[in-house]
């Protein structure tokens, strides 16, 4: 080949390496002397590359324009819907006005006003619009139109990809046009306007391949404000991904998890569960056309989960829920039922907020944390541990941790005075004192330091205000009655003592019942004055009158005569308002009793291992239970179903979780474990967290 003329023809020579060498016609080479084969080759290659580049540019442009078209079409539809809505409104208002006039006229003149047709306006025009519901905004969606709408949604979604923010903006804009926003209008309005909105949005979303995505896309409208947070959370929480969330989550597994997630039968839970799925799906859509929901199952088990897969199946079996709301259908994620299920939910807004996500890890104890108590008003809690100390924590003072979304908290103050493991703890109603009981048989009274102190301040001996001496053996249970400023304690010496710490002689009275064994837990009966309930390690449970010291009611816990450790009651709590007592048993059950009759109202297998602790939220709606199976479960007290499970804490010897607690006024829960950690969770937008987990799964 002559390479001396290879430089001719084009100024640019593309290197021939790497690219496709298309078939070059070398027929010209021999005829024209000024062209050489390499030159021609180069030229053709160059042109080809140029064409390819242009083609890709065209494609991009075309895609953009298509997107724009779809967007504008959607907008147009939206406007049309808005217009039709407004027209509807106008008609209704006109009709109402006519009626008023007629009434007025009748009243004034005694005759009927001739106004012509006084029929209520017919909204025929709306029906013809295939995507929308036939009725006025205040009626619920009909299934057929909804299905049609979904089909269309899917179709549109298939065409283009659509970012979340645009949807947010749009839905917000439409809502503001309609005069609807989340706070101002009632829930129904919102729900029913979303179908209208759907028409708009539909063109803007591409349908996912599975049914869930389409439904989830709809759910997104149920909580638009949530979406705004997503982007922010995503970047922060990208590191949060748990290691065991793998990419190959099978759909079956996911269904299981959805089953778990949806097991809470409460109406409000459905929306939140779907909300979760919704968020996840949206993220998959935006990132990946294939929506394998990798992490939805994992994330609802909340941030604590180290083995998030494990409890799901078990929980599913345990609960065996069949929802009248079509929840079971939703759990199976079939096509037909999801939409109805979604729209059967009346109140969806607050629902998702009830999911807890792991937020704080309190590390500082050297041995298992046996008890914890929240401050009544501040986000402050105190933990008591087997390392003989109590520690004061302020949840607002967190240590920036680089790795996880879970925030580490460091203690502000360490209470040292016990000479043995501290076993129980209670906080006064004012938050100024707390009481701790330990293996050394002493109950120490502490004045709480301010939550803003410097952790390394000088020692203030006045923090320990005194100790209550009375028990001769370990003190296992403490409970305080805030109004009466009285303290109940029970110990391994078999005594239950009533104290009034302010008095000169604090010990007011003692109760003992040797036949029942050792008292393990005490609580004041909250809806009655002057009563308290004591639980024993023989699984008996008795309500006493405080004045007389005599048993009032004996709760029917077990028929067995012998004192057996198997059914020992580990904790007893009374409901704040109802005459209900709840007991946590060593045999994995939680039992509910009526205080008046003593009869057992309900009994359920709550965990896979002994249930160790109970807490009722201040409103009396939820029950939190902790168990040695390393899980905490949140129960709805109305229908006694589990709405959430959190896996937390590791085992030391055979023990795992010792205590759980609700904050009396703020949305916090906490758990104390044998692994020397206390964990606290707050309520926050759960969706952000879920989204993040999903995205990590995809990235992997």
């Amino acid at each position, binding site marked *: 080949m002559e390479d001396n003329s290879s430089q001719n023809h084009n100024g640019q020579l593309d290197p021939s390496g790497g690219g496709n060498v298309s078939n070059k016609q070398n027929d010209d080479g021999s005829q024209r002397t000024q062209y050489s084969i390499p030159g021609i080759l180069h030229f053709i290659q160059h042109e080809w590359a140029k064409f390819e580049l242009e083609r890709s540019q065209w494609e991009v442009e075309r895609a953009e324009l298509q997107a724009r078209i779809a967007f504008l079409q959607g907008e147009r539809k939206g406007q049309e819907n808005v217009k039709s809505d407004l027209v509807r409104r106008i008609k209704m208002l006109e009709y109402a006005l006519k009626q008023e006039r007629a009434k007025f006229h009748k009243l004034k003149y005694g005759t009927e006003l001739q106004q012509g047709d006084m029929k209520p306006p017919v909204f025929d025009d709306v029906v013809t619009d295939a995507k929308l519901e036939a009725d006025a905004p205040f009626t619920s969606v009909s299934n057929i139109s909804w299905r049609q709408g979904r089909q269309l949604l899917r179709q549109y979604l298939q065409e283009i990809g659509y970012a979340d923010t645009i949807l947010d903006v749009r839905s917000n804009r439409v809502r503001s046009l309609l005069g609807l926003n989340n706070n101002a209008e009632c829930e129904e309005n919102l729900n029913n306007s979303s179908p209208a909105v759907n028409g708009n949005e539909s063109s803007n979303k591409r349908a996912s391949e599975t049914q869930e995505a389409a439904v989830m896309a709809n759910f997104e409208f149920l909580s638009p404000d949530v979406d705004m947070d997503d982007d922010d959370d995503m970047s922060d929480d990208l590191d949060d991904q748990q290691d065991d969330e793998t990419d190959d989550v099978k759909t079956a597994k996911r269904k299981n998890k959805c089953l778990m997630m949806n097991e809470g039968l409460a109406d409000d839970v459905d929306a939140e569960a779907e909300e979760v799925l919704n968020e996840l799906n949206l993220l998959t859509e935006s990132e990946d056309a294939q929506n394998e929901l990798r992490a939805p199952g994992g994330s609802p088990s909340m941030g604590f989960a180290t083995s998030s897969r494990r409890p799901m199946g078990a929980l599913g079996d345990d609960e065996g829920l069949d929802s009248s709301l079509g929840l079971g259908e939703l759990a199976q994620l079939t096509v037909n039922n999801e939409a109805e299920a979604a729209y059967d939910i009346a109140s969806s807004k607050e629902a998702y907020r009830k999911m807890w996500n792991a937020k704080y890890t309190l590390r500082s104890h050297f041995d298992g944390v046996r008890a914890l108590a929240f401050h009544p008003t501040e986000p402050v809690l105190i933990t008591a541990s087997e390392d003989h100390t109590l520690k004061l924590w302020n949840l607002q003072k967190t240590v920036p941790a680089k790795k996880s979304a879970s925030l580490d908290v460091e203690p502000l103050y360490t209470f*040292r005075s016990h000479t043995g493991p501290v076993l129980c703890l209670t906080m006064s109603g004012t938050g100024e004192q707390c009481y701790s009981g330990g293996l050394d048989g002493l109950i120490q009274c502490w004045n709480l330091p301010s939550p803003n102190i410097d952790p390394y301040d*000088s020692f203030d001996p006045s923090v320990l205000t005194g100790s209550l001496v009375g028990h001769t053996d370990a003190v296992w249970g403490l409970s305080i009655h805030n109004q009466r400023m009285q303290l109940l304690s029970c110990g*391994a010496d078999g005594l239950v003592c009533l104290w009034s710490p302010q008095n000169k002689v604090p010990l007011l009275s003692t109760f003992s019942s040797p036949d029942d064994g050792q008292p393990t837990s005490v609580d004041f009966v909250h809806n009655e004055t002057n009563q308290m309930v004591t639980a024993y390690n023989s699984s008996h449970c008795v309500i006493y009158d405080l004045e007389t010291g005599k048993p009032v009611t004996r709760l029917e816990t077990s028929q067995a005569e012998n004192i057996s450790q198997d059914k020992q009651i580990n*904790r007893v709590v009374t409901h704040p308002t109802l005459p209900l007592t709840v007991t946590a048993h060593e045999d994995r059950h939680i039992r509910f009793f009526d205080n008046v009759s003593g009869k057992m109202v309900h009994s359920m297998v709550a965990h896979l291992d002994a249930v160790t602790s109970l807490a009722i939220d201040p409103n009396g709606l939820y029950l939190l239970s902790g168990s040695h199976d390393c899980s905490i479960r949140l129960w709805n007290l109305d229908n006694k179903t589990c709405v959430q499970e959190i896996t937390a804490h590791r085992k030391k010897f*055979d023990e795992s979780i010792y205590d759980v607690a609700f904050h009396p006024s703020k949305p916090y829960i906490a758990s104390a474990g044998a692994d020397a950690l206390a964990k606290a969770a707050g309520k926050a937008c759960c969706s952000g967290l879920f989204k993040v987990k999903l995205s990590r799964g995809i990235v992997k």
Partner: protein
Amino acid sequence: MKMADGVTMLRRNRPGTKAADFCRWPDQPFEEMESTLVVQQYIQQQICHDPMNVTQILTPPESQDEGVWKYEHLRQFCLELNGLAVRLQAECHPEACTQMTATEQWIFLCAAHKTPKECPAIDYTRHTLDGAACLLNSNKYFPSRVSIKDSSVAKLGSVCRRVYRIFSHAYFHHRAIFDEFENTTYLCRRFTSFVIKVGCADFTLNSSCFRPDRAIHGGSEMIPVKDNEDESCFLVTKHSPWRGKYKRIFSIGTAGVTTYNPTNMEITNRWPYSDFMGALPGPNANHGQVSLA
């Protein structure tokens, strides 16, 4: 209270357990323990079994990671040291012990603050223990309890050093408390052995100017060399890389060489002649320097 329901034995302290029955379950061999906290379980079990048997408590099981072993022991020490702190709280008032000292020569500054501060003794104790808790539990240095980063192992040494000073302060200034605590828990003895085994002995022990192991191992090491009669004594200045220069009385006796602290005439060191290998004139023989090996 253990529960033996036939086959499984649950090692649990259920509510209602008496203090005497706390953690009273049969020992579990190390190999059979399955949990992430095996090392802590094992150590606590050994201590419960026999707190005086220091060697056995400090002996790691086979194939146990050394870093984790040290870490868990240090946690256990800080845990148990709380008992000493509680006792000191009663007696060690800031007015009495305004500084953290052991002997008169050294004042220890509290490192828990941004700039080291001269805290009263009780504050030093509390801050040190709290700081140790913070460090040993920090997610940054010790994120896991089953594996320790090599860079974090170095931190253990500094914790040891500071913690040791608590012992030395208690020994010198609150002797009664120290003795009572030591007789029940044997903690100082165990800690000293631990520190020597672990290898941060020099820094730890010397900087605390305190050798409690000598003090309490039967006290035999502090009595003079047997049958020694001091023949001639010299007031000398001892040069130490750690502690600078300080005065000692150097006494050559019939059976060995002894050094005394001139302020209180306590024996600080003694070497019987049997320990000597040789004596050579030092480089400046004119000035009378002799090297003893």
